[in-house]
């Protein structure tokens, strides 16, 4: 039974002191090095009713993503482009501190981080999801569930979303005049980039990659940077009421790019 949030907050200074003492010796609570990511496992195509699905485990943190594709109307200002909709729910299964119901500011922020990572990098070729210009396009829903929260839900969610998109199958279509016929055959969702979010926590003066839950609880700040294969960073989000030093920005970038590469190589194996 977890104490309620306000109490946790009161205890933070003490826990932080202990963790800082440990970090000053160069190791983390779970024995990892500062720049060491936990073991990442990726399973895909786990739900047959979804067009794509993936479960990602980062240590004991688990996120699942399901992709559903439906024909719908484009936005008026982009009549020739498909639509991407990303949402993240923190299942109450994942932590005693998550409540069921509409997303709170944390869930909204996280889902927007994942969404921006995919969107700003132009990872999906939305123009190839247009079926009938101005009338019918593919609407791609990515619904992400945080199922078990042992820290770093954002990365698990972003990687799950990406894995589900990379392995999704949508029906081929035949356009007859104004009618759209769905065929038996399928194709993948056209992807241009594989944006991988990597989160770094700052605890005291230390930067640690892929924070565990107990590290998150005492961290001053978390920064998620989403990088592409080319080294381009397509999204950054600092979260938490702490501060960064100026040199932290590039240090975090370097960690994020390095770890992003490792994760991208796991994704490459999905085929």
């Amino acid at each position, binding site marked *: 039974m977890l104490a*309620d949030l306000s109490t946790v907050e009161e205890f933070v200074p003490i826990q932080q002191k202990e963790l800082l003492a440990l970090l000053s010796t160069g190791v983390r609570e779970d024995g990892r090095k500062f720049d060491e990511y936990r073991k990442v496992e990726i399973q895909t195509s786990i739900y047959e*009713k979804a067009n794509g699905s993936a479960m990602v485990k980062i240590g004991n943190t688990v996120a*699942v993503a*399901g992709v559903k594709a439906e024909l719908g109307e484009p936005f008026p200002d982009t009549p020739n482009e498909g639509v991407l909709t990303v*949402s993240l729910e923190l299942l109450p*299964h*994942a932590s005693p501190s998550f409540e*069921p119901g509409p997303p709170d500011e944390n869930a909204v922020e996280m889902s927007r981080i994942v969404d921006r990572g995919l969107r700003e990098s132009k990872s999906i070729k939305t123009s190839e999801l247009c079926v009938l210009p101005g009338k019918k396009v593919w609407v791609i*829903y990515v619904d992400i569930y945080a199922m078990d929260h*042992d820290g770093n839900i954002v990365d698990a969610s972003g990687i799950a979303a990406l894995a589900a998109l990379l392995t999704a199958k949508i029906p081929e279509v035949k356009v007859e005049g104004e009618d759209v016929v769905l065929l038996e055959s399928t194709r993948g969702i056209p992807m241009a980039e594989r944006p991988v979010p990597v989160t770094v926590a700052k605890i005291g003066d230390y930067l640690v990659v892929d924070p565990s839950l107990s590290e998150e609880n005492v961290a001053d700040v978390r920064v998620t940077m989403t990088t592409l294969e080319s080294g381009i960073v397509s999204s950054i989000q600092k979260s938490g009421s702490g501060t960064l030093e100026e040199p932290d920005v590039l240090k975090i970038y370097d960690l994020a790019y390095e770890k992003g590469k490792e994760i991208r190589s796991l994704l490459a194996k999905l085929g």
Partner: protein
Amino acid sequence: MCLSESIVLITQDGVRLDGRRIDELRPVKMQVGVLKNCSGSAYIEQGKTKILVAVQGPREAHPKHIALPGRAILRTRYHMAPFSTDERKSPAPSRREVELSKVIREALEPALFLEEYPKTVIDVFIEVLQADAGTRSAGITAASIALAEAGIPMRDLVTAVAVGKVGGKVVLDLNEAEDEHGEADMPIAMMPSLNKITLLQLNGRLTRQELEEGVNLVKKGIKELYSLQKQALRARFSGAQVEV
């Protein structure tokens, strides 16, 4: 539920679309203890239906005024993931989900010694990850073993499965095609050792005799599921490694 003439859901010999006999369950897989950050958890697959259940609590009630001085409050949430159905489901809770959350709570509650945890709340979260009929009963079956893992003392497990009427015959454990094109769906939950019914619903049309047949047939399914529940709990507490 509508009787679609063109689909033969069951042959003269009593063989169903997916090859099962009239009194046969779908393949079932249950695991206890699949999540780390909750008091208890279970995962169930029954045919293509896939459900993840977590129990949080007993814990202090928030807000405090909902607490009862003499017993724990049980709360349940039955919810379907947006990607669990053929058409994407809106994540907002539907009236159906509100109703099922209530009847599931009332199916579980008779088995629990809630008076052992006064002033607390126990939450049961049932998330349907893939829906292929029988989600409320599979959810109850899984919730019961998740509650056991959470250490809530019980009179008996609760075990549930539906019977239904398909192609004129009373059958066990409908799948989605049978649910959609069949004539009736009757989910039932029981405390198997105590032989008590804790959930009973019917949608569709049954005669008095079919009602009787259904209640008899359902007990066969419940017996089999009950033994799978106990097996899953033994596996959990014998220390076997469990994964989602």
